[in-house]
């Protein structure tokens, strides 16, 4: 089989070269950002010495820290509900072949993946205003309205991740459990849930990062006293470069990278272990 890895240095292939350039394009700007977060100068682009003072200033910035707390709470609440709804929606799409409105439902799940944020944001705001007008709720826009908006677009991503796992899972395990007398709910909790658990974690993390990052939708549905982290970052970035934002960006990039690499290491180890066990089982059929 003609598998040519990008590391065959003898003759670098065109796709291999493009991959290298692509990584450079993706990572160079972030590395520049990180480097300048340690610049002592207030003018971000003028290097005058190594310093960690901007991290101190960032932690002392009360408005920024309040927004961080708000955004983290929001992301936690969003990710949790998005995974619950995403699991239900994924079960519908993969396990129920026919139910009334299946086509419509499929569209409702995929459309938020691509819908421009300005449209989603405006439409949800108009809904909240109309609801407040007719039933008096929500009286104030803030945490709850942003939460609802975030769950709505994040559950689509969670659904895609979870249904991919549900589709590749071996359904004969579920059938076996039901043959042995378990009902659907018992089967779900004893068999299905443990098997799709990695996808639930992946979907949860994805929804968490999407919620933490959203500027546009939150700006539409937020009230006057609810400011999320992206909103505060946006208003300071609009005025130009800010060393505190560089420090914040560095913390974010390092955290995401660390969590991803640890997660990758765990999954990779489990995969290898499972493959070894399968090979061993095939070699010695007892």
């Amino acid at each position, binding site marked *: 089989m003609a598998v040519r890895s990008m590391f065959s240095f003898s003759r670098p292939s065109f796709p291999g070269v493009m991959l290298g350039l692509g990584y450079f394009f993706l990572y160079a700007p972030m590395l520049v950002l990180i480097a300048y977060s340690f610049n002592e100068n207030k003018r971000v*682009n003028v290097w005058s010495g190594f310093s960690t003072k901007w991290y101190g200033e960032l932690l002392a910035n009360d408005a920024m820290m309040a927004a961080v707390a708000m955004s983290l709470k929001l992301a936690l609440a969003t990710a949790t509900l998005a995974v619950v709804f995403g699991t239900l929606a994924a079960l519908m799409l993969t396990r129920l072949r026919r139910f009334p409105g299946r086509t419509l439902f499929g569209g409702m799940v995929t459309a938020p993946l691509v819908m421009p944020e300005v449209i989603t944001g405006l439409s949800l705001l108009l*809904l909240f205003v109309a609801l407040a007008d007719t039933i008096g709720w929500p009286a104030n826009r803030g945490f709850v309205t942003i939460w609802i908006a975030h769950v709505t677009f994040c559950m689509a991503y969670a659904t895609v991740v979870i249904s991919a796992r549900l589709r590749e899972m071996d359904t004969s395990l579920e059938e076996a459990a039901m043959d042995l007398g378990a009902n659907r709910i018992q089967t779900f909790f004893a068999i299905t849930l443990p098997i799709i658990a990695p996808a639930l974690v992946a979907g949860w993390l994805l929804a968490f990062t999407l919620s933490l*990052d959203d500027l546009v939708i939150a700006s539409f549905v937020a009230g006057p006293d609810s400011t999320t982290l992206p909103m505060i970052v946006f208003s300071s970035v609009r005025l130009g*470069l800010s060393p505190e934002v560089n420090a914040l960006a560095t913390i974010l990039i390092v955290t995401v990278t660390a969590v991803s690499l640890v997660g990758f290491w765990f999954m990779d180890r489990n995969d290898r272990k499972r493959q070894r066990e399968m090979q061993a089982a095939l070699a010695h059929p007892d």
Partner: protein
Amino acid sequence: MNLLRRWLPDRRWGVIAPPFLWLSLFFVIPFALVFKISLSEMAIAQPPYVPLLEYLDGVLNVRLNFGNYTWLFDDPLYADAYLSSLGIAAWSTVICLAIGYPMAYAISKMRGSLQNLCLLLVVLPSWTSLLIRVYAWMGILKNDGIINNVLLAVGLIAEPLRLLNTTGAVYVGIVYAYLPFMVLPLYANLTRMDPRLLEAAADLGARPLTRFLRITLPLSVGGVIAGSMLVFIPAVGEFVVPELLGGNEATMIGKVLWGEFFANRDWPVASAVATLMLLVLILPILLFHRYQSRELEVAR
């Protein structure tokens, strides 16, 4: 009787109802409201528009104002913004495809662990913040940014080039932000391809380029469509990139909508802008949806 039973609630509805109701209420109904408000008039009130239906002295008055739409068609600013958004989004998609296809191809040819790691490295940037990644480019493209500083130091230019606040900067930002969304579906498609097809072609004497053009490329059309739609559709309505990198030069429609809503507080015109944008995007969205549901069937 059977028909009745099909519609009566059974236990499946415990699974179906919550996400279905949630999406209907918070995703579908809001679009109807956008259309409704787009036919209203701006008012100095809370909320800032005139109600469409009024019940006065036993008479139901319906006031439909098409003025917002004629306004959008009369003022060339809006047509320009729509056209430049579509153009920028389309070219960004082509550039993403040109960079992303070879990347996805290279990754799909790797072996187990390395393949997963390389894929992770492509997706990882999209898990950090889009806002922050666009901000990073502000620092690079500024007049006293890295590119200008290097070019000045080397002596290639005598004074800084204007890179930030140009349409070119918007292209860079959009391609940078959306590249991972192009690579992911392409990789998913390419990695599923049956290698025996290529071996058979090779045995029959086809050269590598012929094998790629006659087998790999036609079989990956689904991935190309999915990736392209994942880039094109959101890019048309993009706000953050043109706002931070485009300055006054690139007026994209997402920025226009934002301005109508937040600066002018003209909710009806903002709604009309959104309605027209949705009309333009409905075909691409349907195309994307068709590909997605075909994916579900293929895997079953």
